[in-house]
């Protein structure tokens, strides 16, 4: 497993346990020692993860082994049927989407996919979408609206792709229209920030009736590095920028920007993906139940009113 800097003491202990097991072979006498070390690991994980700094959370949110959109889709969605293309220009694999069943009911799932190894990262352009990705998202949201199917978005992107071709095809307009679609559809829209919620590329999929965020996910107007290089004129200040931006799920919940923080397993989603899937499944189910039976026009009006008030209520 990829070890983050602040996880090194934990990894060392885990290494010791491995070593002990390896040396002892079938010897049962080491059980006590292993148990003692494991207890130490758990204690250290608990204390470390209970007080992660915003910068550490940024690292966890970007952990290469953290589950990505397709992992959640595989775990939570049956009969997933991917749909492709924006019908204008092309198919952008940085945004995956399609129909499937969540706990028996049809949903439209749309998510940023970062990829999990070199090949898939390239295929999904590291989760950085181009206009065709946002236009596909819009198309799928509108389709869901026509069929009365709830939409589930899984947000995990460093941001929209900053490239010449993306600009040439109207990146700004594509994002704006995707936000507009989020705010326009007459079906429930549940958005979950599963990893990194990066700027306009994230809000394009995240203007939902309910916005959930995993415990160690981040969501920000700009990356800490980007903010540091502009305001501190040094990328080194990313740590300070992460603090100042208030990008953690806990801070965003306090600010009233998100509706719910979904707990992660001890040591983060990457240490126990199955438990993460289970917890999130329950949270999504409950969010969908809250909106079940609400008339489409009301769903839309409530969603719009919620975003119309953002910031109006003043500081927390």
């Amino acid at each position: 497993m990829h070890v983050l800097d602040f996880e090194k003491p934990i990894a060392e202990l885990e290494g010791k346990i491995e070593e002990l097991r390896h040396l002892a072979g079938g010897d049962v006498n080491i059980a006590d020692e292993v148990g003692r070390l494991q207890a130490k690991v758990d204690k250290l994980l608990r204390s470390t993860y209970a007080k992660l700094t915003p910068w550490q959370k940024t690292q966890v949110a970007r952990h290469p082994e953290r589950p990505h959109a397709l992992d959640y889709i595989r775990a939570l969605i049956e009969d997933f049927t991917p749909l492709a293309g924006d019908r204008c220009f092309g198919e952008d694999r940085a945004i995956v989407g399609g129909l499937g069943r969540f706990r028996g009911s049809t949903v439209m799932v749309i998510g940023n996919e970062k990829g999990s190894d070199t090949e898939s990262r390239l295929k999904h352009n590291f989760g950085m979408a181009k206009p065709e990705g946002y236009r596909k998202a819009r198309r799928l949201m509108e389709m869901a609206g026509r069929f009365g199917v709830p939409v589930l978005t899984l947000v995990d992107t460093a941001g929209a792709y900053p490239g010449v071709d993306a600009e040439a095809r109207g990146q700004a307009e594509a994002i704006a229209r995707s936000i507009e679609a989020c705010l326009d559809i007459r079906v429930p829209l549940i958005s979950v920030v599963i990893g990194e919620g990066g700027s306009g590329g994230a809000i394009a999929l995240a203007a939902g009736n309910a916005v959930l965020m995993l415990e160690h996910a981040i969501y920000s107007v700009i990356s800490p590095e980007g903010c540091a290089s502009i305001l501190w004129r040094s990328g080194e200040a990313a740590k300070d920028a992460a603090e100042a931006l208030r990008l953690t799920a806990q801070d965003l919940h306090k600010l009233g920007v998100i509706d719910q923080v979904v707990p992660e397993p001890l040591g983060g989603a990457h240490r126990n993906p199955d438990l993460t899937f289970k917890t999130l499944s329950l949270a999504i189910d409950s969010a969908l139940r809250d909106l079940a039976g609400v008339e489409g026009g009301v769903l839309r009006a409530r969603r719009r009113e919620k975003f119309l008030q953002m910031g109006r209520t003043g500081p927390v």
Partner: protein
Amino acid sequence: MNWLTNYVRPKLQALVRPKEVPENLWRKCPACGHMIFHRDLEKALNVCQHCGHHLRLSVGKRLEMLFDDGKFQRIELPKTADDPLKFKDQKRYTDRLKEARAKTGEQDAVVVAHGKMGGIGIVVAAFNFDFQGGSMGVAVGEGIVTAAELAVLQDAPLIVIPASGGARMQEGILSLMQMARTTVAVERVKEKGLPYIVLLTDPTTGGVSASFAMLGDIAIAEPAAVIGFAGARVIETTIREKLPEGFQRAEYLLDKGMVDMVVPRAELRATLVRLLSLLRNRGPAGDLLTLPLDTPDAFPEDSARL
């Protein structure tokens, strides 16, 4: 609605503006390098008479230039919380705000005004680039929302004039949320059947371009204005792509199908007046056409064919 009654005449603003110091009598054109006498520049609406370069225009001048007889009423915007995140980089955000307010005499980066254009009542929200680069925080969002609400209330078209580098970083996620917020606001104007026109000026980038600024019924851009999502420097440094000639300029966007027209400043008012008139005074044929669409079975012969 006290914000409706409070207004400032443009003439009054002119009086309180600081006197021009002698070295400001001449201005160098950033495009061609010619020295331009300030009166000539003012007369030409800040357009260089040598090369046609459009220099930035102050909000006050912009509004004067657009409204009939230069007359408009400014709307006092509802107060929003300063510094909702208690943000501090190398400087406190509250100090940056104080400086920007002292420099511009404005509360934040957007000015909302109403008045007539070609005799048609309109609401305008114009950005002040001098205030923190026209960046969008909660106060700017409030300005757009207020302008949109006023347009609906007055049954008037809405014209928004962005000049903004994008989000106000110091307001973090709340600034990002203004993208969704302003989108709802302008959608409400459009749903009322009111024209929503965006006049894109230099620069319109980032979160501002990726929300209300790209949602206009009609998008007009000033010549050579930089319009785009990602900053050119970001594209160069992160993707290491070579930028094509004229990249993210108004003419480039016109060519790519992202704006309806590029209009020189001198022709802006006439263009807007004509568009407003076409959309608002449609004449008998125009009015008739919209009626049957709302009526069921408006085209019985069509349904018979089905």
